[in-house]
């Protein structure tokens, strides 16, 4: 991975997602009418068209849907290899996050692996990364 990550431009409407880790919480937008989680956030619920969308804390538990081990040093200071994964949130598997799996051997990472969120702070932003739910 790279020490000097490329960081997202954060719109105020999505600050909860990128900055919620400050309080140790993974905040995902949720429709207050039909309870659908909406990610990335938006001004309307695509399921029921309600405008009542509010961030809610989720458990931070997830399952690895798929992953790749990146071996290519795209930049001189990129430390390889590392794991990029897409994880499905326990509360609603259709909500997925692209992330890194950290805190374990690369060889142990597999589809279906249970993981939990941890946060990596970069200035004001807390990137949601994931580690194995049960560490050996």
């Amino acid at each position, binding site marked *: 991975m790279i020490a000097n990550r*490329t960081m*997202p*431009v954060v719109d105020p409407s999505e600050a909860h997602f990128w900055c919620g880790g400050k309080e140790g919480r993974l905040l995902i937008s949720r429709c207050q009418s039909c309870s659908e989680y909406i990610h990335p956030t938006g001004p309307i619920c695509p399921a029921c068209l309600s405008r009542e969308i509010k961030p809610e804390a989720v458990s931070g538990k997830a399952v690895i849907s*798929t992953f790749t081990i990146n*071996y290519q040093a795209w930049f001189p200071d990129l430390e390889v290899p590392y794991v990029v994964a897409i994880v499905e949130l326990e509360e609603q598997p259709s*909500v997925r996050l*692209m992330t890194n799996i950290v805190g374990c051997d690369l060889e142990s990472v597999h589809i279906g692996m249970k993981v939990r969120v941890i946060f990596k702070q970069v200035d004001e932003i807390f990137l949601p990364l994931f580690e194995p739910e049960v560490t050996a």
Partner: protein
Amino acid sequence: MDMIKQRAAISGIGQSEVGRRLGKSGLALTIDAVMDALADAGLEPKDIDGISTWPGLNTDIPGFSPVGAPELKDALQLNLNWYSGSSEAPGQLGAVVNACMAVASGMVKHVICFRTINETTALSQLKGKVASTVGGGQQVDGWAKYMVPFDAFSASNWVALYAQKHFHEYGTTREQLGQIAVNARRNAGLNPKAIYRDPITLDDYLNSRMISSPLCLYDCDVPVDASTVIIISRLEEARELNKTPIRFESIGCAHNSRYSWDQFDDLSTQALRDASAALWKNTDLKPADVDVAELYDGFSFICLDWLEQLGFCGKGEGGAFIEGGSRIALDGEIPLNTHGGQLSAGRTHGFGFMHEACTQLWGEGGERQVANKPQVAIASAGGGTLAASFLLTRD
């Protein structure tokens, strides 16, 4: 779709030199391709009244799209009734879809569709400047902001996630996927314009270095400088020109899931699923009627996914279908990427597949010509969120 089928056709194709670090400007490449296509069709610049391109001028990524519709118009001082250039289209060949609609509507007679790319020259000229918009320490906005901060810098990472899911769900193996690369290289050996022409074996593939598992070096296409042109004309006008018109039996560019790499509903396939299904809704032809398939292979897995979703085999059966490589060879049941694909002929970025489909339908493939005068071809472009497919027939 019936209006396009009855009123629009391909009247000519053209291409510049294709190569690495050619040192030519994007506009010079474009003009080379345009003049080649005009001569092919038997048209002159004054006949052209439309331009359609993908993704339009883009100065954010060096060499990614150095020429837009306005630059071409001005270089030839064309009088236009319509023009368009945008990345917000169903894949690179979305520019051809737009042109077909413009012609079928009666607004224009002859449209130049082009894709120009000169990344290899542009990157070599940067002289130490950052060679990407997503390098360390920068900021990213738009759809990429949910991927790049997690060091998923490259499309090879994004496609690798899908390939891994397919491997997991269906037992697909590297030995199977490798046939896409081996087949492309075999065909490239017969294409004088291809970048890499020396044959590779499955062992070469398996031993090549890993880029982003399960994708290795030979699963990734090769960037080039090139411009490719497809001319879309009114069918009745095309019939008066040099070539037998190539007609659009059907076009598929549907998109029915989340427009996102990570939120797409099935991570073992891509948006091309919907574009493939839509293709067969507008025609009585079936996959078995197709004589040659030119399917996007920016990464080998994308090509495998197209084969499955277009119905050449069942979902998840692609690995077994291509195993051994005989079915997709030039003399196989569905000759695939007869020019060498982007993997070996170079990243002409979508347009090369339609160019090659026309070459085959016109019987101009030379050493790589598919036997028995192919009458029906599929061309497709796009992976991830991008996809359009075309069922092409001789008039």
